[in-house]
């Protein structure tokens, strides 16, 4: 059997005409674009027109399950969404766990393309061969969790449910969708895109199943992987702490606060909102199908203003860092409450907290006054955050400006505000390189989506400073970086050229996105390039080598770049925020931007040189940032 792993079909839905069309997936696409993100991007290349407005009916929204989603490959659970997003006009791809990707696959489909605008609120119901556009007037206006509960009541709790909240209905650019109450999908405005189409939700359940080409071989390999995960010595800790896994390694953990200008007092973040709190509030762990680490949580506040309050979270960092620490709440239960509000409204809480912090910073600096805040006296506290979050959901008042993100806020508050903004391509930034200058910081500059990048977790440089060079060299070998590239990466005065290294981390992430494998470290570390190639071969029946798989990864990253180059993005959009060249202050200490091993301070010229290096490593034009015709030909992307 060839073509296993895939269900082999695409659903096209036009919400305006009501047409629902099922088409067989062209087998040539699988050979050329592999699957998952690769085929999402092929669809984007064919269907997203450069002149189309993100919130117009014509803007398609493309969903796709990874190739191994639906199987028992550990952690293969991701569904990808690709669309032109209203935040910044990029053609952006996001990923989420939860059960939607599996259910779509088990129902008999890999991809779902939705265009048009329904005249009234609707949701899409997929149950094997029965696909219906159903009325959603009873759901419109409800928050995401209530909508999901209602749809589970109608479709059974097996169903994978993706829903938007009030922020999406009201077309806020920071809106996203949420899958099964535990996984966010589509930062930068998927919620608004769905809202603009009057599409409240998608509910899918399937009973057709998915086959693989060599079931015995596949079972043998996945059993080995599952055994490996079981015996992974840090698994228990990962399951307990999830994304706070590394916090305990840093007893003096400090983080940027006060809008990227100061460092929190050592230990404060962990003491008030960290590991001890998570251990206390964790009520249940929730796994995406096939996942061995169950990082999603049901949590319940045990103290504070909201003692007893229970909610579902994709991770605890939002309540702890985005709200507790950044808004100086003093009481972790207030952070849990704000996380719950944001998730129910369907607002990206990290972005919301960052934009609120930005506004408070501008207010403190006198750049904006109560005239711009429409009467609000802004300060870092619970009431300010709650008020602005409610305004964001309703798209009213100051929150109504902030919910459209940095581009809208800068337009409203003027260029002086823009100089203070810490953002890339209109998107907030997750990691401050003044703490650790690793692959996650660098890709924030050059990846197409902007600061809230698409490469989480895979870089060994991301969360741990100064890992020995030998360790990073071994990682390069494990993930299949070519020998000549290894030489280029490590022949550098910093010991490690972070720009060139980032290229290979991105390509590895691309490969993960073919399969839909989660990038959380405890999952990702089980997959070296040889294992991934074997899985591909056993699932599809088409033999592939690790090198060929890496080439797929590079091809996909380039196709993503091509789509966005066609949209008009170029090197001038790959910006480095001014703030990164200013010190982070804490007491009498200063932390400045330095290389990964903290041997030398990095200037703007150094960063521009690194961007040159990155383009060169990718075979892209250094002047424009566009993929060179020669590289595209080499990757068979001359005519996608």
């Amino acid at each position: 059997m060839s073509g296993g792993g895939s269900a082999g079909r695409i659903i096209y839905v036009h919400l305006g005409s009501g047409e629902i069309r099922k088409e067989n997936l062209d087998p040539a696409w699988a050979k050329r674009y592999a699957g998952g993100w690769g085929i999402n991007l092929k669809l984007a290349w064919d269907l997203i027109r450069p002149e189309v407005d993100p919130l117009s009916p014509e803007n398609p929204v493309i969903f796709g399950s990874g190739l191994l989603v639906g199987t028992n490959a550990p952690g293969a659970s991701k569904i990808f969404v690709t669309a032109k997003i209203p935040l910044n006009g990029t053609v952006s791809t996001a990923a989420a766990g939860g059960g939607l990707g599996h259910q779509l696959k088990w129902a008999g489909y890999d991809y779902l393309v939705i265009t048009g605008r329904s005249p009234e609120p609707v949701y899409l119901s997929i149950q094997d061969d029965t696909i219906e556009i159903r009325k959603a007037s009873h759901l419109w206006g409800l928050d995401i969790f209530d909508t999901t509960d209602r749809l589970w009541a109608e479709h059974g709790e097996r169903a994978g449910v993706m829903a938007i909240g009030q922020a999406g209905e009201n077309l806020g650019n920071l809106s996203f969708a949420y899958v099964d109450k535990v996984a966010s999908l589509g930062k930068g405005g998927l919620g608004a895109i769905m809202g603009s189409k009057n599409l409240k939700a998608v509910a899918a359940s399937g009973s057709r199943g998915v086959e693989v080409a060599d079931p015995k071989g596949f079972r043998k390999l996945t059993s080995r992987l599952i055994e490996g995960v079981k015996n992974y010595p840090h698994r228990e800790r990962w399951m307990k702490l999830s994304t706070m896994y590394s916090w305990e390694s840093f007893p003096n953990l400090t983080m940027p606060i006060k809008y990227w200008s100061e460092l929190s007092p050592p230990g404060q973040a962990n003491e008030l909102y960290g590991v001890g709190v998570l251990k206390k509030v964790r009520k249940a762990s929730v796994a995406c199908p096939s996942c061995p680490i169950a990082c999603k949580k049901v949590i319940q506040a045990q103290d504070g203003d909201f003692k007893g309050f229970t909610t579902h979270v994709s991770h605890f960092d939002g309540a702890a860092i985005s709200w507790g620490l950044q808004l100086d709440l003093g009481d972790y239960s207030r952070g849990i409450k704000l996380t719950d509000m944001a998730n129910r409204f369907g607002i990206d809480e990290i972005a919301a907290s960052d934009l609120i912090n930005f506004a408070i910073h501008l207010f403190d600096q006198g750049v904006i006054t109560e005239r711009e805040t429409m009467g609000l006296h802004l300060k870092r506290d619970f009431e300010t955050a709650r008020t602005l979050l409610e305004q964001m959901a309703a798209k009213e008042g100051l929150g109504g400006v902030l919910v459209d993100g940095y581009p809208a806020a800068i337009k409203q508050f003027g260029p002086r505000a823009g100089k203070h903004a810490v953002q890339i391509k209109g998107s907030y930034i997750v990691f401050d390189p003044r703490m650790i200058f690793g692959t996650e910081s660098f890709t924030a500059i050059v990846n197409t989506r902007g600061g809230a990048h698409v490469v989480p977790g895979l870089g060994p440089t991301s969360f741990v400073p100064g890992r020995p060079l030998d360790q990073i060299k071994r990682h390069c070998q494990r993930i299949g970086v070519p020998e000549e590239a290894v030489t280029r990466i490590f022949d550098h005065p910093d010991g490690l050229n972070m720009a060139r290294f980032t290229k290979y981390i991105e390509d590895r992430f691309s490969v993960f996105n073919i399969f839909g494998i989660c990038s959380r470290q405890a999952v990702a570390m089980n997959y070296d390039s040889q294992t991934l190639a074997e899985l591909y071969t056993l699932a599809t029946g088409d033999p592939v080598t690790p090198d060929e798989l890496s080439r797929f990864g590079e091809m996909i990253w380039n196709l993503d770049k091509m789509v966005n180059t066609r949209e008009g993005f170029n090197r001038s959009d790959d910006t480095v925020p001014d703030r990164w060249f200013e010190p982070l202050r804490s007491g009498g200490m200063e932390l400045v931007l330095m290389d990964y091993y903290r041997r030398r301070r990095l200037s703007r010229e150094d960063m521009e040189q690194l961007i040159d290096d990155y383009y060169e490593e990718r075979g892209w034009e250094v002047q424009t940032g566009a993929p060179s015709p020669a590289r595209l030909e080499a990757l068979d992307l001359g005519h996608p």
Partner: protein
Amino acid sequence: MPHRDPNNDKVLIDPDKCTGCLNCQLICSLVYADSFNPARARIMIGGSQDKREIHFTEECTACKLCIEHCVYGTLEAIEEVV
């Protein structure tokens, strides 16, 4: 509370440990229905995210594959006393 199911009394089930990963259903359906298809598995995972319900179907042969593939300790083999 850990319990047994009438359709498979060789397994002690602790639903409180279940995370809903469906690994048991995935391996069961692959082996007995030739595809990854929880709807055709002989172990049923239901309930809500913070309160799971686990049962076996009448077709279950107590082969223990689900126990081997459960990574959360939800399913435990009951040793027969001779």
